[in-house]
């Protein structure tokens, strides 16, 4: 009789069925922990997915060629001058790019009749923005209106704060790169659904509008964003872009994995004027929200570890009790010739069966609850939106995480069963048979 023997599994299963209540309780606990793991992993995955989607739609390409232009030591502007040449070089030398967009970058005060807000403004050419059109969901208005007039696209929360609707006028105030105050009156042409934290401070105008506001010429833009055919190539292509720019005589800033607006202080301290380019990837541009990812990841790991330790202790104790109850049975089996190894495998099989049944049920429950929550589109309070990066609660467990939960919990339960099983296997037949427990 060995570990794979069907009789062994049959005995294990019958033993579990004989103690139905205890087995059901253990299976329920294991299932609950597994379901929780699946749900937490789903929240984490959804959060990462939302962040990637929002970041590469609202703030960044997969790779960005941005930079600063300094008119004096103390004044810098997020500008790329003569950008057409760089775009041409990228098109020629970087075939990995699926499409390229240019965007103006700025930070301005938006003033409505009743309120004001400091917000980031991106100048976009809506015809170039393939991803933007697909991802941004409009609540009112039309994106195409950005082409024909001085318009602005706001997100729901911003529109609510400014108390404006499509068709209303707002004033955009910002200093030009030379520090001269300028204003522009624009019309709200569209209001989009919130996209979590990142949509809280991003607004969109046309590139022409941002050029007029900042008094820029047609050959200047804020950033050139590259969207790649294959996202797994980001770091390779990033290096390639960097080398290509240096080879073509461009001055690059030192690598700094932070968002462009966090670099003003550093750039203003540096003793140079003119143009320097900065190559970043999407993770760099949203590095300021990494704390949320780290926090959720840490909390997720901690909760799972605590739960696994607790159920391990529970399973270990329950099995120890079961072995004590069945000491005379073990003695009898050993007396009729059952090998120690077979006794060990019999009890290990019980642990494995408990783990496997519990985790399968847990995964089924977890996945069902996850899809139910996501389908319900439960709105999140503002505080939770900041952490979870989404305006609605989304739980999206992946196949990888489900498989991991299955293997990890079942493996842990089987491993925990090893101790009591070994103790059972080591019992001497005479001692076991005379046991009175």
């Amino acid at each position, binding site marked *: 009789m060995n570990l794979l023997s069907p009789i062994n599994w049959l005995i294990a299963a019958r033993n579990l069925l004989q103690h139905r209540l205890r087995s059901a309780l253990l299976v329920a606990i294991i299932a609950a922990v597994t379901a929780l793991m699946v749900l937490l992993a789903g929240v984490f995955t959804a959060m990462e997915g939302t962040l990637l989607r929002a970041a590469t739609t609202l703030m960044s390409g997969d790779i960005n060629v941005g930079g600063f232009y300094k008119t*004096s*030591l*103390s*004044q810098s502007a997020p500008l790329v001058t003569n950008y057409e040449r760089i775009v041409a070089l990228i098109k020629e030398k970087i075939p990995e790019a699926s499409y390229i967009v240019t965007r103006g970058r700025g930070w301005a005060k938006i*003033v409505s009749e009743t*309120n*004001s807000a400091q917000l980031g403004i991106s100048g976009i050419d809506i015809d170039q923005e393939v991803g933007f059109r697909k991802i941004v969901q409009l609540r009112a208005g039309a994106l195409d209106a950005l082409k024909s007039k001085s318009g602005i696209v706001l997100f729901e929360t911003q529109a609510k704060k400014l108390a404006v609707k499509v068709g209303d006028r707002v*004033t955009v*105030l910002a*200093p*030009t790169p*030379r*520090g*001269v*105050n*300028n*204003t*522009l009156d624009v019309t709200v042409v569209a209001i989009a659904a919130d996209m979590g934290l990142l949509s809280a401070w991003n607004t969109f105008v046309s590139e022409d509008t941002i050029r007029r506001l900042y*008094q820029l010429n047609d050959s200047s833009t804020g950033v050139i964003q590259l969207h790649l055919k294959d996202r797994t190539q980001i770091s390779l292509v990033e290096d390639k872009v960097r080398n290509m720019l240096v080879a073509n005589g461009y001055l690059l800033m030192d690598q700094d994995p932070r968002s462009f607006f966090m670099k003003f*202080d550093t750039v*203003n*301290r540096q003793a140079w004027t003119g143009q320097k380019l900065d190559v970043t990837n999407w993770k760099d541009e949203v590095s300021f929200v990494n704390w949320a990812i780290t926090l959720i990841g840490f909390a997720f790991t901690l909760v799972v570890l605590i739960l696994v330790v607790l159920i391990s202790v529970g399973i270990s104790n329950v099995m120890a009790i079961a072995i004590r109850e069945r000491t005379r049975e073990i003695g009898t089996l050993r007396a009729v010739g059952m090998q120690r190894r077979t006794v060990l495998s019999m009890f290990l099989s019980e642990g494995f069966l408990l783990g496997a049944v519990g985790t399968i049920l847990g995964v089924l429950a977890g996945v069902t609850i996850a899809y139910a929550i996501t389908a319900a589109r439960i709105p999140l309070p503002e505080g939770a939106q900041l952490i979870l990066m989404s305006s609605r609660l989304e739980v999206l467990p992946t196949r990888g995480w489900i498989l991991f939960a299955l293997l990890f919990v079942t493996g842990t339960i089987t491993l925990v069963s090893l101790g009591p099983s070994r103790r059972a296997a080591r019992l001497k037949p005479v001692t076991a048979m005379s046991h009175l427990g």
Partner: protein
Amino acid sequence: MHRPLRLLIVTLLALHGTAAVAMSSEEMLSVLKETDLRQSNTGDYKALAYIEQKEKEKADIVRELLVYRRDVDEKFMLLTTKPKSEEGKGYLRLDKNLWSYDPGTGKWERTTDRERIGGTNSRRSDFDQSRLAEEYTPVFCGDEKLGRFETFCLDLHVKSSVDVAYPQIKLWFDKSTHNLLKRQEFALSGRLMRTAYYPKWEKLYSSSKKADVWFPKEIRIFDEVERSNSTLVLFKAVDLSPLEGNLFTKAWLESKSR
């Protein structure tokens, strides 16, 4: 809250002046130079000032600060002394750069010369020496009656290659005293951004200048974009005696918050 006051000021300073007689370029430049000269001091300048900021749906902010100037070297420094939470924060101009200091972080940040002071609608230029003749070219825009004052108005446009916060400003001067009474500042787009009133001017004899130094006792600033916001700047206790030699340094400003 300040609207009635604003309306009152506007009403008092009602228009309908006498027929305007255009001033020559020399005359206008002379008025600007006179205004700059009156406010400058060859020695040092120290003033205790208060800024009160009113914003819609926000609690009023009041700050007490000390203003230090050494006009000969174009040195300038602001040190916030109250409230407690803002104590030790300051601005210091070194060469052409304006630095802000926050004792909370211990960090110096190079800011633009046009930055709002302490988040209020007041600017460095409201506290610094006047450089109107140096920075702007005037155009005569008529005589007006502002309340009981007979005034003339100059429309100033920034000179090329000079960087200022507002490329166009309009100034109203009292005809009899040449005191500046009203100032309007316009953005590059031509939009009116701020209107400031200077209802009181005072003078103090400077032994180093061997003449009087003029300073506004108060400035009432109205935000023309966010109409409900206003700022009041009060100057108290102006002192023209010599300041310490090493005053205009980062170390000195840092020492005030230790």
